[in-house]
């Protein structure tokens, strides 16, 4: 087998995983951009989206289950902000962060209580779960469409932010709460919209993500959430294109490391499995450390300008 034929499936799955991370990462980066808050509960919102799909699909047809799941996830994101973050608007940032950690554990424990900690099988969504063959690599259709869905959603989002009134308000609020208020902007509405968009994208992401995995457990949000967060930091937290590019880079690298043994063996570089795949998660976090050391603001991070 040629080198390309060996590597291609890994790149394909890497792009797909990257797209899923990107959809979660946007939620982190947008909330940070506006509130300077790392929303630790975001990964768990993603998990709840997966779990509610499991329960909804058990009693509803898919064409109803999917929109209801999206609406529930959006409502959850909105409620978390109103209940756990809004009352702390004037409190020190540390308090809001601790509140976010609290919400994260609350969601995980509720999920544990409801599921009993058992793995819940994710419903099979027809068409997107189908097996297809592309350039000689066999995969599921969701793997191929994920990056396109992601990029389409990101383009719409960027257009909204740059060309609509609410997008302009979001940019203004993210820079200066007080002056935005003087323009007549209701900052609480703008913040709510940010959480709604973030939760919506996480809901879509959860559908694409869990379709490729056996099921949902209460801690399912942890790892993808953390990696999406690393992607957001990697790209420069606060920047949407940064988060997307960061997510794709991390997805592809991670997937290539998972397949490194197979790739090297097919080329005759090594004779037996070394076990690189074990390190694929570690790699993500090593990457985070390296970035923070050499480029603390990330790839596209805002330049820190000191006000004189």
């Amino acid at each position: 087998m040629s080198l390309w034929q060996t590597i291609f499936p890994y790149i394909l799955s890497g792009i797909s995983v990257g797209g899923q991370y990107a959809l979660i990462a946007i939620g982190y980066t947008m909330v940070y951009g506006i509130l300077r808050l790392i929303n630790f509960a975001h990964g768990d919102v993603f998990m709840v989206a997966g779990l509610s799909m499991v329960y909804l699909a058990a009693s509803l047809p898919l064409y109803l289950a999917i929109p209801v799941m999206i609406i529930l996830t959006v409502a959850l994101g909105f409620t978390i902000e109103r209940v756990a973050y809004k009352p702390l608007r004037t409190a020190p940032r540390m308090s809001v962060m601790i509140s976010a950690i609290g919400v994260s554990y609350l969601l995980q424990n509720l999920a544990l209580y409801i599921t009993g900690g058992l793995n819940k099988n994710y419903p099979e969504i027809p068409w997107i779960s189908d097996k297809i063959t592309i350039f000689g690599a066999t995969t599921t259709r969701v793997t191929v469409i994920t990056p396109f869905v992601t990029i389409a959603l990101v383009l719409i989002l960027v257009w909204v932010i740059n060309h609509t009134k609410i997008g302009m308000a979001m940019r203004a609020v993210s820079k200066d709460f007080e002056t935005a208020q003087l323009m007549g902007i209701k900052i609480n509405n703008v913040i709510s919209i940010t959480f709604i968009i973030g939760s919506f994208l996480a809901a879509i992401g959860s559908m694409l993500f869990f379709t490729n995995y056996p099921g949902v457990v209460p801690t399912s949000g942890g790892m993808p959430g953390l990696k999406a967060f690393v992607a957001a930091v990697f790209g420069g937290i606060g920047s949407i294109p940064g988060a997307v590019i960061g997510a794709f880079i991390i997805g592809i690298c991670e997937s290539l490391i998972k397949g490194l043994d197979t790739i090297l063996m097919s080329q005759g570089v090594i004779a037996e499995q070394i076990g690189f795949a074990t390190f694929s998660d570690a790699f993500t976090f090593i990457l985070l450390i390296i970035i923070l050391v050499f480029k603390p603001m990330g790839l596209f991070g805002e330049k820190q300008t000191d006000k004189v």
Partner: protein
Amino acid sequence: MLKIRDLRVNYGGIEAVKGITFDVPEKSIVTLIGANGAGKSTTLRTISGLVKPSGGNIEWNGKDITGISSDQVVKQGITMVPEGRRVFADLTVLENLKIGAYLRNDDLTEDLKWVFDLFPRLKERSWQYAGTLSGGEQQMLAVGRALMSRPEVLMMDEPSLGLAPIIVQDIFSIIRDIHEKGVTILLVEQNANMALKTADIGYVLETGRITMQGSGKELLNNEDVKKAYLGT
């Protein structure tokens, strides 16, 4: 008419405004002058809804607007140009102007034309990021942005702060132009000389209290004001 009655504001544990009473009659220019920390900015911030008063009343055309939110104040036709300009540096000049009209849903063409007539420099630079403008241009943008909400009362907090004397002259001549268009102006200034020359009515604030009041001319010729604020 904007009526302030016995307004009290606590700010970080201290009473920054200790019961002040003054009027801003329709189509007048009123100025509050005083030293740093006299409570001038706090007064404006309270009227604009950014700070909640601890006592007293703010009345606008017979309606009590004490403690209402900022967006409601703007909706009532009272807009503030904040201290230090505070333009949105990452938005273009045109976007800054559009965001000033955030609460309006009607056509902005005429208002944009008016602002660009007042400040031709802004028209030339309408596509630039506001952060690339000079200090004077940013001040003009901040004023233009506030005008886009079609205010009846324009409150300005230290518009001359940190600007070259020649630009300060421009700013004050523009304030008079805006006033001639029928906009009521409430001006807070440390540049007492320029402010009193421009204003119909002036109030002197000292540590949260109004200690003197009169027409601009009266205060300009008042010995105490001369000594304390005009340096002559």
